[in-house]
């Protein structure tokens, strides 16, 4: 009869910190079930939980523990909108974060804007999230323009003449492909570029791949998310289109560090060039190292960018509450606007320039690396472009056939 209260008391004392104060609620809207990207949602949740535990172990913020209130948006914009509405009106959260699918973020920021609640965008790349110029929306995560520019610079450095991209039919995919088209025209005017949009629910992309076999391009770029991205990569390989001695395969979606990448992409992943926001050889601040160690301890795997992005999202909210000395959403928003905080990936400052840089951490570090063997951990991949460095073409390894 007394077993449960007794165990609970022991657990609380073992944790080392006992909170009497009411918790500060932070709303988390992520995909925890299909058709959303549950893979991303799970990674985001892992990163957030690590930071929540770190913060609470240190006594919380303003003497109060952080409580994360989760809502499953299933990757569906309408569900995201309803989730945000519920988090703000019923759960009374002080801020919302965790967003990792652009179409959902675009729906959710409307609600956050209407109620004046800070929204820290974890991983929605679409520039449209920024160009709405909502004062409540802060973007410490990556953005399409950044990736497109990086990819265009890579194409220019490699002096490629003919490039094809496959983009998923979403705000993220189409937006990214259009921007890539624009930046290739600017940075590599001699390159012929076209993109094909594919249905992310489809399981067969062979006809689109077959069309490339007669006249293979110099590079095929992936702008899709799993599982469709994995299927496309495998079909490109099986049809002998990419990667080959003629055609590079480039992952522009940063998928190679996903925990399920090698299970789903075997030979097709070898020799692939990858855009990434994190590489174990990058220099990261002490907080980043702490989060990486904790993740490795918990998951027995190398962390990926989403772990850090999620960690930074919550750290920014916590620091803003500390600076504001208040949980009032408007005070948190004001603190975020003037933020100068070193998180897991660098020092955050939000630009007030209009356009895609609005309330964006502009100088997000990124790298390019090449996978040179099947099942290769990212730490052993070839880093061909470090953060802030030019791409070293001589380090690239072309497939034998």
């Amino acid at each position: 009869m007394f077993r449960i209260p007794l165990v609970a008391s022991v657990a609380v004392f073992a944790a080392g910190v006992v909170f009497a104060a009411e918790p500060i609620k932070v709303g988390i809207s992520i995909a925890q079930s299909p058709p959303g990207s549950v893979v991303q949602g799970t990674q985001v949740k892992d990163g957030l939980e690590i930071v929540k535990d770190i913060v609470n172990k240190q006594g919380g913020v303003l003497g109060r523990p952080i409580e994360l209130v989760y809502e499953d948006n299933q990757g569906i914009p309408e569900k995201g909108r309803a989730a945000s509405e519920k988090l703000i009106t019923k759960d009374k959260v002080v801020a919302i974060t965790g967003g990792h699918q652009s179409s959902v973020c675009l729906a959710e920021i409307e609600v956050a804007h209407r109620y004046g609640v800070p929204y820290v965008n974890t991983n929605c790349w679409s520039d449209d999230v920024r160009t709405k110029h909502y004062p409540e929306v802060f973007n410490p995560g990556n953005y399409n323009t950044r990736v497109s520019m990086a990819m265009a610079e890579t194409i220019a450095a490699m002096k490629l003449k003919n490039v094809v991209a496959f983009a998923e039919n979403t705000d993220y995919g189409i937006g990214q492909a259009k921007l890539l088209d624009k930046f290739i025209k600017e940075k590599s005017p001699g390159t012929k570029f076209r993109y094909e949009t594919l249905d992310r629910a489809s399981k067969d992309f062979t006809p689109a791949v077959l069309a490339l076999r007669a006249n293979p391009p110099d590079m095929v770029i992936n702008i899709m998310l799993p599982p469709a991205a994995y299927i496309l990569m495998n079909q490109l390989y099986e049809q002998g289109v990419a990667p080959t001695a003629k055609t590079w395969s480039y992952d522009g979606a940063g998928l190679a560090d996903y925990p399920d990448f090698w299970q789903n992409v075997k030979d097709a992943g070898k020799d692939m060039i990858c855009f990434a926001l994190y590489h174990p050889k990058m220099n990261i601040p002490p907080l980043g190292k702490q989060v990486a160690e904790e993740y490795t301890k918990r998951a027995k795997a190398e962390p990926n960018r989403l772990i850090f992005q999620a960690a930074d999202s919550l750290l920014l909210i916590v620091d803003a509450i500390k600076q504001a000395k208040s949980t009032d959403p408007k005070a948190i928003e004001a603190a975020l606007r003037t933020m100068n905080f070193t998180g897991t990936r660098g020092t955050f400052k939000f630009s007030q320039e209009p356009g895609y840089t609005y309330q964006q951490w502009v100088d997000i570090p990124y790298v390019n690396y090449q996978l040179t063997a099947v099942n290769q951990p990212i730490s052993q991949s070839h880093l061909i472009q470090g953060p802030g460095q030019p791409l070293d073409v001589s380090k690239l390894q072309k497939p034998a056939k």
Partner: protein
Amino acid sequence: MLVVDLFVNGLIVGLFYALMAVGLAMIFGVLKIVNFAHGEFYMIGAYTYVLVALKLGVSPWAALPLAAIAGALVGWLVERSLMRPLYAGYGSWSIMKDEYAVVVTFGLSLFLINLVDKVVGPYPYRGPALVETSRFAIGPVMLNGQKLIAAGVSAALLIGLALFIKRSLWGRQIQAVAQNRLGASLAGIDATRTTSLIFAISGLLAALSGALLAPVINPSPDVGGFPAVKSYVIVVLGGMGSVWGAMIASLLLGVLESFFAVYVSYDYRDAFGLLILMLVLIFRPQGLLGEKVREL
């Protein structure tokens, strides 16, 4: 050479469509209902194959029949537990048969997707291939070993199924129940047992289709949605309830989609299937091999 490539690929895809659609057509033929959980039979086959082969270390060749058995078992269980009210003495229920079938199969579909999501996890799992050769060329056509085997097994199964329905005693019983359930019962055919058999065959075919494609499609919990939608299109296209019609419509759709994607627009490939469906419904509402029926 692209034409040959596209034709071969279209035929292979058509065979996969057929394996899925035939089971759905059989269920409609006998019960006149649409099974909205049919895609989840496919998902169960894919997951059984992947988990048995990867987690238990069973040979993929042995995992294949196990996946088929799992699909047949689930099909049989669904019929026993959820479909019986449609015809087994629940008088008032039979009046709202269509509503019952839609709600119960749709609910089952959502339940199975979420069950697998929570129990197995959200990550896609690529199944081990039946053969090591991931790609090889026959003349101008580049082929995937797994896809070729899957297409061969699908073709053999479809021919076997056609012979089974046409020549075996059970097959004739299925035909009889599909034509007239009451008449078949009066002639001494156990219509209930025949319906169980149809659900088991339907589950088996869909599960086998999922298992054969598991190394190609990287199954995740919602993997059945897309092939199920294609199957509904095919069943209507071929003629509601017609097994032969479903087979022909599958191959036709596979080849036409393949050509349309390259020569017209990849973006509208799936819309193209629906366009064909609309045209068939306008000019030949009974489908390719369906029969005109007038209800009195």
